[in-house]
């Protein structure tokens, strides 16, 4: 399973390195979303409020994660668009690859891409919204587990819509409501990581971890019956 996962992940990352769709299109998209949020909320709110933080900085965690989720939609879509070309989905079915391995591999490749995207968007949010950072450990844990949750759930739902003509519109409808707990947990934990106290965030990190675990499990168990028919 892990061998297959490594094989698929390496293949997907190699494709990304060559085609640069994530780097060249999806990362800029995320940055545009961040900018637009700032504009829509009004940049004037960047002035400091009573408690020493600007309104923009206060809403920054939520806006950041919404931008990440929107970009992630595109990233998982891309991950399956690659398989849709030239009948590769059929070819994958004809190999001896373990479906669970294919799931883990594709999810891992998307996760790596999302980490890079989050790094860039994070720097963007830091500059645009002017946020402090209180706890690096909490921030790192939040980012890792949130990314795992988003990619695992995203890969499951993108697989459900794989090979359909309406794929691009169906995945957001199916996936976004599901990501509610992730968005909540990530926003609150990030807020705690930025403004403190970190103790408020750790319990949400647990939720993020549980969600990621749940969807990794769902993917491993169900990927076969989703993809094979």
């Amino acid at each position, binding site marked *: 399973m892990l061998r297959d996962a490594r094989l698929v992940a390496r293949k997907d990352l190699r494709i990304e390195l060559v085609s640069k769709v994530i780097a060249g299109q999806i990362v800029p998209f995320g940055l545009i979303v961040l900018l637009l949020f700032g504009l829509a909320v009004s940049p004037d709110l960047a002035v400091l409020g009573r408690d020493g933080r600007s309104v923009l900085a206060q809403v920054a965690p939520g806006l950041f994660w919404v931008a990440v989720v929107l970009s992630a939609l595109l990233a998982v879509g891309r991950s399956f668009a690659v398989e849709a070309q030239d009948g590769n989905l059929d070819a994958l079915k004809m190999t001896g690859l373990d479906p669970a391995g294919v799931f883990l591999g594709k999810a891992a490749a998307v996760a790596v891409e999302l980490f890079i995207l989050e790094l860039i968007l994070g720097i963007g949010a830091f500059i645009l919204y002017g946020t402090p950072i209180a706890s690096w450990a909490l921030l790192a844990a939040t980012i890792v587990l949130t990314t795992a949750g988003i990619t695992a759930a995203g890969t499951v739902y993108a697989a*459900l819509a794989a090979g359909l003509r*309406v794929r691009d519109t169906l995945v957001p409808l*199916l996936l976004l*409501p599901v990501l*509610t*707990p992730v968005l909540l947990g990530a926003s609150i934990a990030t807020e705690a990581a930025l403004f403190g106290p970190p103790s408020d965030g750790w319990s949400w990190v647990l939720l993020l971890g549980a969600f990621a675990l749940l969807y990794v499990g769902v993917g491993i168990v*169900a990927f076969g*019956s*989703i993809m094979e*028919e």
Partner: protein
Amino acid sequence: MGRAQSSSEADVSPSASASADAATPASRAQRLSTSSRLTRVLGIAGLLLLGIMLAFGLWFSGPEIAMRDSVRLLYIHVPSVFVAYLCFGVTFLGSVQYLRNQSSFWDLMAHAAAEIGVLFVVFVLVTGSLWGKPTWGTYWQWDPRLTSTSMMLLMYVGYLALRRLDLPGEVRSQRAAVLGIVSILNVIVVHYSVKWWRSLHQSQTFGIDTQMDGLMLFSFFLGVIAFLAIGAWLLVHRFRVGWMESQLDEIRLEHALVERRNEGRAYPREDDLLQVRPGES
């Protein structure tokens, strides 16, 4: 298909077998719809119960002390919640059964239940926010139940969207079954996370000390029974509609098959280069 057909007969209308040979005009008319003796009894019972429930809920029972007359909304709100959850439960069960033995009976049942469930969740949300306006002063509160219920609605709207797609039947049923199972997990996770979220943000709870007297409780009870009867009636009919659609698909396929087999006669055999044996078989 054959297996599922027989099970659907057994499960849906066990009591209606007596009317099999009746060829009276009345039974002929009733055979042209989705109703049967079972659903007729169920439907009349549901309507009667609903009538009694309306009389008690809107007339005989009095206003509640804190909520005043808006308590009457709860007599239809809570039963709708029951029906919706039961329906999604049926969808879950049907999905599991489909994955286990490819039963198209359960596949159709899961679909039917999800549609009824969505209808009743809409009722839950409408009555919930109509109740919220006089109680909280606003139609929409970021109340955990309201928030997670609306997410649940969206999830099952997505499920129905997947079901509506024009896909090879087996693929669609398979994927819908996986989604039907996963959706229940989502409902649970979303529900608890939203609840936790609100409990952290503000300590204020929206529960109100209710003091329901006997008549109120009775109206409430009637509402639950009536809605369950009506929900079951809708479910059976929706299932039969889906079942007839699948039957029509089968007939269409049979026609297509005949047409397909006749294709050969329509085309001249120009590429028979190797050998042709004349004569009809």
